[in-house]
């Protein structure tokens, strides 16, 4: 333990060489807290600067973004970039891209919640032959790099004629292919007391009833965390839609964003940044609405409600 030498505390320190928290004066405490806040604020500023830059740049004319322009705000403040961004690309309106992203993200949330919770229940509460083997296999899929399966998966979906539909992007979510979420829920369920199930069983409940009436309500924090993550991941997914979608009318936002920047022609950075700002909003709203549940999900261990 070391003491922080401060002018006000120095007199006390010479008399009491061992650190004694009680000897710390109110002034030293305030100074410590001030230093902590200054450092924290400085770090926040560093972390948030890119976001600030993005928002500021979305109001600048294209020629003033990047390059030798270093000022954050432009005197030529305008909403033109947003107008261009909302115009859409190649005859497809930006609202279409938003709708597509929303369909994919909500589909992913619903699919993951339904399938992962049921699979997790099976792994955590039902003793079936080969359970540990299957559980191990599921965990193993977590270790499989995504890039290894891209081509085989593409071949399968291509042969099934499902390319250029949303099915390749969503079917995995409905089949609990996201092992991470299954694992998350299994761990959560293992912490719920088994006595609850046993009591329900004595009352005559089957698996469906136990799952629906007892487990699901108790798992709310895990379900919320899962929804938030799968929403954000799906909203930001670029590679999946890139590989499986061919028609511009079906593109989600991340694909559309990239179309504003073309190194081989002229790039409209302004419109791209404006669209990034717009694309960020739904994720931000989703997060703000559910964020208190995230905290709840982390702090609730075991039983609640």
């Amino acid at each position, binding site marked *: 333990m070391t003491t922080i030498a401060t002018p006000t505390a120095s007199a006390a320190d010479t008399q009491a060489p061992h650190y004694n928290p009680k000897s710390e004066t109110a002034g030293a405490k305030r100074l410590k807290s001030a230093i902590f806040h200054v450092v924290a604020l400085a770090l926040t500023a560093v972390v948030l600067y890119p976001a600030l830059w993005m928002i500021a740049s979305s109001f600048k004319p294209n020629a003033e973004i*990047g390059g030798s322009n270093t000022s954050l705000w432009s005197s030529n403040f305008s909403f033109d970039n947003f107008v261009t961004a909302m115009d859409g690309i190649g005859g497809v309106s930006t609202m279409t891209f938003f709708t597509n992203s929303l369909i994919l993200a909500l589909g992913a949330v619903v699919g993951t919640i339904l399938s992962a919770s049921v699979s997790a229940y099976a792994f955590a509460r039902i003793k079936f032959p080969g359970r540990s083997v299957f559980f191990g296999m599921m965990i193993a899929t977590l270790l499989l790099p995504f890039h290894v399966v891209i*081509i085989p998966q593409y071949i399968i979906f291509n042969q099934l004629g499902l390319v250029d539909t949303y099915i390749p992007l969503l079917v995995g979510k409905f089949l609990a292919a996201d092992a991470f979420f299954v694992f998350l829920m299994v761990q959560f369920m293992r912490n719920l007391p088994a006595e609850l199930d046993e009591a329900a069983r004595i009352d005559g409940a089957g698996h469906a009833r136990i799952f629906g009436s007892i487990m699901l309500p108790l798992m709310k924090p895990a379900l919320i965390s899962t929804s938030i993550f799968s929403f954000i991941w799906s909203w930001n997914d670029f590679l999946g839609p890139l590989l499986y979608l061919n028609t511009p009318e079906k593109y989600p936002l991340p*694909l559309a964003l990239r*179309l504003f*920047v073309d190194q081989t022609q*002229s790039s409209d950075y302004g419109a791209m940044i404006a669209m990034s700002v717009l694309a960020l909003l739904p994720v931000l709203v989703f997060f703000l609405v559910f964020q208190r549940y995230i905290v709840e999900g982390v702090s609730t261990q075991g039983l609640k409600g």
Partner: protein
Amino acid sequence: MIDRRNFLTTVALGTASAAVLAACGQPSPAQTGSADNPVTINYTWWGNDDRAERTRKAIALFEAKNPDIKVNGNFTDFPAYWQKRATEAAGGGLPDVMQWDLSYLRDYGQRNQLLDLSTVKIDTSAFDKSLLPSGQIRGKTYGIPTSTNAFAVYYDPAKLASLGIAEPDGSWTYDEYNAFLTEVGTKSGGALFGSSDYTSVWWMFNIWLRQQNIEAFTEDGKLGFSKDDLKEWWNKVADLRGTPAIISEERITQLLPKSAFGSNATASEVTWDNFMAGYLGDSGAKELKLVPVPSDDPDNLGLFLKPSMLMVASAKTKNKDAAARFIDFMVNDPEVGEIFKTSRGVPASKTQRDGTTFEGTDKLVVDYEKSIEKYLKDAPEPPIVGFGTLEASFKRISADLNFGKVDVNGAADAWFKEAEDLIKQNA
């Protein structure tokens, strides 16, 4: 008992055989369409909003003229475009017709992913004879150029005027060009740099080699120049590095994603003439001009026309005839030229070029290519497999040179090692 090693082998074999099976497929009979029951072909391209809009118009025109064919268009940005093509090629799902880039032609052509276009009916009579070989590999035509670029020196006349420097007339030696860069740097007091390091641009090096009648790559895909050639090249601006004649690498990095020239930090730049619209947009300059590259031999500028992009078809397309008709339309039809202007580059086919009216910036680029006509030589063969990597490492090692991390000898050694490794790998 499955141990881990066997398991991996089994999975790998399974995957590989699945890929092979998928690649084989069954040859299906050629389909023909009618106005009532049109065949559908997929066409894909990279590019921005503007190109998407123009292409949509061209497709609508094609469908109006060919009611028996329907074209499904789709597009992505350039880097993602190649990720998607790589996956599709492995999975046997390449679109029927694709916009293509020269640096990927040999790779996909050699792997038999592309259709030999000499087996279908496409009219190439209006093309410059020196241009067509750039779409051919070992006697097979895999790509038809839509349009051309030529290399040039850009400069901003307004910046030169404000410094009181005379505009270059385009016939200059390397020493004169270096002197020009130095004059810009000194007269502006360091506020404006002459250019970025032109010796870091692969194509400029390639042109300098051609000025001495050296080909960069031999026919069997080996390097056609020696380490000494490369050292001599990088030494050309040895005295200029670190002076206001050449912008520092640090500054270039600060300016990203824009180029130094596009951010008004330099007065000139060597690159392809189709960057005009991008530079004008980025810099906000009123006017930019183009002159030929420097050469120590005034009769041999080493210049050539490079296809800025090509049209190719998938080897597995079920609608060869429809694909060929669409390619023919996109490269030859004068109305298509009128739609795209020079946004794909200067139209390669004479019928298309003559059918298009060029104004403003478009005219500058077309006039430039006309002005260098008498210097043009045959376009080089499609670059070797892995050329993109080589070009990138050329740039990276040149940057190290400008940072002062290596000297010219070390840089040449480093690049040659990378190049030889890569050529061995792909041999």
